[in-house]
């Protein structure tokens, strides 16, 4: 596709359920980022993938959060046993050379935990 695609656009889930969020980066982009943005706040770094290197997971807030990426393609962010505090917009971005070049963002997934 022409840009970064995220799905679903919106997700409402019950507390305690697991959710999986998907990100399709721009073809050829080796770097992929996940961020969390709570209402009215800035972007909180979660995880970074660069090609086949080990991901930088330093921003994952707890072991309920995990993410995978196969090669330079699709990435999934999984949140297990969701809590109300997980409610936020989850943004994905990709770039050609990590943070050396501009990042292109998807429209995000708005997660609401009820």
């Amino acid at each position, binding site marked *: 596709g022409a840009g*970064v695609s995220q799905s679903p656009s919106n997700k409402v889930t019950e507390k305690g359920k697991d959710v999986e969020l998907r990100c399709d980066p721009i073809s050829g982009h080796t*770097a992929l*980022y996940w*961020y969390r*943005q709570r*209402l009215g*706040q*800035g*972007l909180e*770094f979660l995880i*970074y993938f*660069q090609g086949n290197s080990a991901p*930088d997971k330093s921003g994952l807030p707890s072991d309920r959060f995990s993410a995978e990426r196969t090669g330079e393609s699709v990435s999934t962010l999984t949140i297990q046993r969701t809590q109300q505090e997980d409610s936020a*917009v989850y*943004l994905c*971005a990709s*770039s050609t050379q*990590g*943070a*050396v*070049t*501009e*990042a*292109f*963002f*998807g*429209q*995000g997934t708005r997660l609401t935990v009820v």
Partner: protein
Amino acid sequence: SQQGEEDPQALSIQEGENATMNCSYKTSINNLQWYRQNSGRGLVHLILIRSNEREKHSGRLRVTLDTSKKSSSLLITASRAADTASYFCATAYGEYGNKLVFGAGTILRVKS
């Protein structure tokens, strides 16, 4: 935290005026980037300034970088109502300069 800190948190100006937003950061960086966000969803890249650059222009945007003070400023000249958005600075740091970390942002409102 490695995040940049923007100020002011919010800025309200009249159409035609200039808007200045500032960003400070804590550690050595590879580059600093500015992004705009409308309606709380995807961000759009505005401009990237490398650590060895001091000033950069793009249309009505002017960005400066002072690495000695660990700060940057974004100036939007002749603002328009369409410039109303949140503006974020992002710093690239780390061993390979690949970790892109964002500040809390400045909310700009341009009144027509």
